[in-house]
């Protein structure tokens, strides 16, 4: 919330805050994606992403809830909880740098995991879907960047 978004000042609130990832894909198209990506099942307490790991996948949380933790092992803090239906991890998908947070399951659940290698495979089989996916990922990054800028320079 901005405290000083003066009406009539003509500066729109620039931040879109919710995106539906690949909203227009049909079930059949999802099935084609799922052929070449990983689907992971997890139990409560399991780490999906380990801070410091070099893992270039992004995730679609198809069921369950996960916590985002930061800090060293002795001093972990939950910074937020991610609910079913969320998309996360796309930054490392692009830059392939080490993870900065740990993602730990709160409950039993499942996630779709898409690595760079998976994406290359998808692009080989389904260039159309892959292209759309890439644009969507770009849109997500852009939205997050705008949001970051909006807190940095609000």
């Amino acid at each position: 919330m901005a405290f000083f978004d003066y009406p009539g000042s003509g500066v729109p609130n620039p931040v879109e805050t919710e995106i539906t990832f690949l909203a227009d894909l049909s079930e059949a198209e999802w099935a084609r994606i799922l052929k070449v990506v990983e689907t992971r099942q997890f139990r409560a307490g399991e780490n999906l992403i380990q801070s410091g790991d070099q893992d270039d996948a992004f995730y679609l949380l198809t069921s369950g809830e996960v916590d985002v933790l930061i800090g060293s092992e002795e001093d972990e803090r939950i910074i937020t909880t991610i609910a079913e239906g969320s998309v996360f991890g796309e930054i490392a998908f692009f830059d392939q740098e080490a993870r900065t947070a740990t993602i730990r399951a709160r409950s039993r659940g499942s996630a779709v995991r898409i690595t760079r290698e998976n994406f290359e495979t998808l692009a080989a089989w389904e260039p159309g879907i892959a292209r759309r996916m890439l644009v969507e990922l770009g849109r997500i990054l852009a939205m997050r960047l705008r949001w970051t800028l909006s807190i940095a320079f609000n």
Partner: protein
Amino acid sequence: MSEFVEKPFPSYLEMPSRLPAWFWWAFRIATIGVMLVVAWLIATKPEIGFAVFWKVLIPSLPLLFALAPGIWRQICPMALANQLPRTFGFSQDWTLPVRFKNLAYFVSVLAFFFLVSLRHVYFNKEPAALLILIFGALGLALLGGLLFKGRSGWCGTFCPLAPIQKAYGHAPLFTVRNGYCPTCVGCQKNCYDFNPRAAFMSDLTDNDLWYAGHKKFFVAGLPGFAIAFFTADDPNQTGLAPYYLHLTGWIITTLGLYMAARIFIRVSDYAAAAVSAMAALVIFYWFTADGIVSTVAQMLGMTSPSWIKYPIVATIALVAVRVLVNGIRAEKDFLTFKAPSGEPRVRVQVDAVRAGGADATGDLVTDRASGRSFAADPGRTLLDGIESAGLTQDFGCRMGMCGADPIAIVEGMENLSPPNDDELATLRRLGLEGRARMACVCNAAAGPVTIDLEIDPNELPEPPPPADQVDLGEETGIQRVVIIGNGTSGMAAADEIRRMSTSCKIDVVARENHLFYNRMAVGRLLYGRTGLEDLYLMAPDWYEKHDITMWLNTQATAIDREACQVTLGTGETLPYDRLVLAMGSSAFVPPAEGADLPGCFVLREAADVQAIRAHRQEHGVERAVVLGGGVLGIEAADALRRVNLKTTIVHRSDSLMNRELDERGAAILRHFLEELGVDVVTGASVAAIKGNSRVEAIELTNGETLPAGIFVSCAGVSANTDLAGAAGLTVGRGVVVDAQMKTSDDKIFAVGDVAELPGEVRGLWGVGTSQAAVAAAAMFGKEIAYKAPSTLVSLKMDGIDVKGFGSLETEKGGEEIMDAVESDTLHRRIVIDNGQIKGAVFVGPPGSGKHITQAVQKQADVTGIVDRLRKGDWDALSEV
């Protein structure tokens, strides 16, 4: 109040107007009236005028600012002057430049300190000076209103009273709606009239530290200024210099205290500023309370008691604490709401994804060590599941034959699909019969399973006790067996022979300096983190346990059939009663010019891959050419691609994998490779390999020249028959054997790639393993029939399923079934003759050929499902 519950920081637009506009106008006019009366008093009866102005009116303002600053902002005469042009529409409405918006506060702070300091010099005693101050301020406010839009010409910017209002009124106990801005034009930064509760907090947390710093400077210096002001000696007697030294000294003192406290006490900028401001408020009344009360009392003709100051200051202190509590509570909300309404979220339509196949409700297969799980899916092997869960597991044939991927079943053995003959044979060879499973060929059909990827032999159930067996070696007098070659056929022979005789001495001569490893997976040594030890197929203690003598790094150089002994490269000789030839084959190298240049490689042994790796790193090679578009060549190209070598496959035939695939299948495969960046040239071969000291380019027979620093020949193999030929054994394309794997010498057997059993397929892993069993039995006089293993060929490449089997010819009968619609991404074709699958091609994304493998391996009768296959129901294959 109701708004407040919903929104802790309402802007004035969201506040109710509790009092009508006419009331405020009346109030404003009354205030002007009072001001004019006071001004008249100052001019005519300065004694009374000064007392009213300096002792009563002005000292009441700080308390008003702390309680309800909005009231003052409604009725302030300067605000009225400032807003007249706007109200009557004759303002220039200029926009205050951003630089001034940022600087205005600082200017007003300096003006405040300076003007107040002049009280002792002029304003407290000289009527003219005070009147100039009052009317000058009104004039400037009016001028600001004439020029600048909104309240940016004075009220919120340059007015010297504004900083003090914000400081004392940073968390007002009562808010009053801004009555001057009919519409907000956004005229200033963090406008106090727009959002009184959030303005000061926003200022202090502004990202412009310079801007935020001005606020901190003011509140930190304010207590010192208050003390200094009231304790200063009369500058008219002491002179200005000591006076200002006194003032600035105190400002700097509390500024320093503030900064020191900030260093040692962990509080927010806001809390620190609020405490400092409230301290100034209390100090102010400590010095002024007496004056206010006595002046009022005097006017009413009374005297005030001397202790009156204390209850007043105590009350002010309570107000200050109340404001502090109010502010610090509000700060929590402020920080929560400051973030733009929540972090952006990205959602996916879970229902669609789940319907696409990502379901989480079924049973799980769990890896005990990592705790990771994947869905128990009867349509998917455990190996596929393990890989999909991001776990690493070595593999080779993916058909249950090589023994690369045994996994221990900790729980739920009964929930797995039953093993087939190939898998049972492999498990038997590994000594894991009934105790583990090959991940590549079993699936969790009926319920949850827990597995261990690393097998700890101590945790496995006891192996079944060996059946009381006659020692066939003792019985037949065969006491010394020499095996040449420690590939799969040689080691399978050693294992089978040891099963038949515990007394027989077994020597294995091996040219490579490695224990038996998974030759099919050597490509993985190029990329990834696989080390050679990961490819070993037998535990290191297997050799000792089975009493097998290994001669590693030792070449057999001659066979003396007369003397029944094998000569080794070391000069030693090994006598034998029976000899097994398992020398395998070597990669074919094209007889082209330059084929001996550094940079020319084959892909057969671990050492080949290590050499490619070293060459690439040493010379920074960027491009590679693979000769051969069969399974081996494509797998090699995939490995090279993964280490970022731009790779071209050169294939003699017109379509890839032409022995196994039809054109449609090959086209899909080619397209897939090209999408991954692997180029394919068909209908061509290598004419010459060019380069000065190492490979630099490959000249093709079609005239093209491809720059490349690495050349890998994957264009077929030839059996290592030299030794056998020199010993006078019958040799064709391999060492010719009969159905018992016996060569033209009764004492010598040949198995695996090196053997040629007329009419049978050669060059496959499973062939050597099966033949070894036949040879071992025959050696001890037992005849068993050779059962050719399934010859389904599958490409071991991530991201694509390619399966080829048998022959697609239908001339001599048989029915062909194919996907009706031609697709760029999926091709399934099968030939059925007499209820048997005679040939098949499956090419598509992962999973496309999942059922064909099982159906072929079972050699199942498919008569019952032909109808369904004709209708395109390929899943029917899983039910045979």
